[in-house]
């Protein structure tokens, strides 16, 4: 299998600042593979997804590195071509289903608009596809849902709609940006199962951004641990849960709550470990500056 997405030495910084927020990030994903990006809040996991999809906030710019999507270097493409390539081959499952649907439009166009406007389908074909997808995400009354407005649906339903919308154009890459964080626990499980089901059926490459290692163990084959915008460990999920190589990963794993022993497990990550990780990031920065 060939890597569908390859990110090489990707660095990003706030516009006009030297301090990097992504520090020479490299990873690749094969077709049909799920890569977990884990780390604390602010580690830059969502930022990587945004960089790939070209939706970084305007204050942040990519300062070096390469993103190869389906063999094409995104940074070297014309903006309009890049936009169309991303729209046709990649999709995003957003974090908060309550804010990710346009409140003034019905559900149907929000699922079909990419098919019709970007990929040139007829409205009728797109509608058939949308109904099919809503069935796939186990929505009982797809016709009624398609005619609804977002405020008429529950959070779980909206996330199902967004998943259907993400898979509408048969994307080869899906970036799931903490897709279950905003949902309550029972719904989380269903949504997670659903994402795994669709990913497996469509053999989609997927970047799964989360802070929840429990989720990673259920859905990913490999994972990358981020600290301070730097990948501190790349490993397969099996290896990782056997024993992480990096001290920070070990501390992160140790800090994950376990349902079997909720009291004992709520430990913060050891400060010495964080200091060591921070020092490592700074050392990498020094090296990068001398190298560049």
């Amino acid at each position: 299998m060939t890597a569908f997405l390859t990110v090489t030495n990707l660095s990003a910084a706030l516009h006009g600042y030297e301090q990097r927020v992504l520090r020479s990030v490299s990873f690749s994903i094969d077709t049909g593979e799920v890569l977990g990006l884990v780390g604390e809040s602010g580690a830059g996991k969502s930022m990587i997804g945004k960089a790939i999809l070209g939706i970084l906030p305007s204050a942040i710019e990519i300062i070096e590195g390469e993103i190869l999507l389906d063999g094409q270097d995104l940074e070297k493409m014309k903006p309009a071509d890049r936009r169309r390539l991303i729209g046709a081959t990649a999709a995003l499952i957003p974090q908060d289903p309550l804010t990710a649907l346009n409140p003034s439009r019905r559900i149907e166009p929000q699922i079909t608009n990419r098919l019709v406007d970007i990929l040139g389908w007829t409205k009728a074909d797109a509608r058939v596809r949308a109904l099919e997808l809503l069935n796939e995400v186990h929505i009982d009354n797809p016709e009624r849902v398609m005619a609804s407005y977002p405020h008429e649906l529950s959070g779980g339903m909206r996330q199902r709609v967004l998943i259907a919308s993400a898979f509408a154009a048969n994307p080869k890459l899906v970036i799931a940006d903490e897709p279950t964080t905003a949902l309550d626990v029972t719904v989380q499980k269903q949504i997670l199962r659903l994402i795994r089901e669709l990913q497996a059926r469509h053999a989609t490459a997927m970047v799964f951004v989360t802070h929840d290692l429990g989720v990673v163990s259920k859905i990913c084959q490999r994972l990358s641990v981020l600290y301070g915008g730097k990948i501190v460990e790349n490993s397969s999920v099996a290896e990782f849960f056997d024993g992480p190589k990096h001290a920070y990963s070990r501390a992160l794993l140790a800090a994950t709550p376990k349902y079997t022993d909720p009291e004992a497990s709520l430990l913060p990550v050891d400060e010495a470990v964080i200091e060591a990780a921070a020092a490592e990031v700074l050392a990498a920065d020094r090296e990068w500056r001398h190298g560049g």
Partner: protein
Amino acid sequence: MKLLRATLLRLLTMSVTLIGVAVVVFFVIRVVPGNPIAMMLPPGATEDDVARLTALYGLDKSIVEQFVIWLGGVLQGDFGTSISLRQPVMPLVLGRLPATLELAIFALVIAVIVGGALALTGVRHRETRTETAVDVANGVGLSIPDFLWALILIVLFGVLMPIFHISGRISPSLDLPFVTQFYVFESVARLRFDLWWDLLKHMFMPALALAIPLAAIISQLLKQSLKETMHLDYVTLSRTKGYSENHVILSEALPNAMLPTLTLIGVQFTFLIGGTVIIERLFSYEGLGNMAIDAVINRDLPLIQGIVIVFALLFTIINLLVDMMYAVLNPRLRHA
């Protein structure tokens, strides 16, 4: 059923508002100093003449009595007789209303187009010099009131570069085939574009003077809400689908961002109609506002009352229309 009840309730509140306006205006203009009868008679009129005329217009009775008589007439569609023009009030007012409506609507159209275009340009090129230029234009538009804009425009396009007419509604030399007072609409309907053009050349400057401050307000608020909307998740999501920036702004952000602006336009449009009073005067435009000023100068109590009631009715109708439009555009309100 629900809709019917809501409509009836709305009509009820509208009539209460109008009655309130009628009461206030009736008593206020009678408390203000000034005697309409004194304005009508030549100097040297005898006490007897004054008393006779006062009795003729019913002004010798108590204010409450006068009000009851007037309100009784109003409920039967009779707003009394103008003291200065010696004609029934309602035909006079209705004859002038179309001129003011056309001016106000023309001004509103200019304001929405200019304000909307400025806001969209500012958002499309946000955080660049173009946005700064839009902000400066908004600031200038807002800081100069409409009557000053009128004077500036008269100097610019009436005197220095005389492109537009500075006085009146239509050139007096033209033969008018019109049967209604809606000259602009009727000239289009009759395909008389020569007349239409002449009307536009008269209306353009007063309408622009009224429109500039409103355009600035629209531009400022719309740009602000668009910029906030552009950060929302559904807008970001539509970017990942492959849409261009223009499409994202126009079809994802704008329909939501324009809702607060719409409410504001409703409120500001009533202010704009208030502004026509002085603007019509400056441009000698034969509308209701100009007539209102004459009525006040002549202490023409029945005419002032009639004009104020018609303005009040207009405002309540505008508010109703805005609420209805808001309900259509915002699906979250439709079931409420």
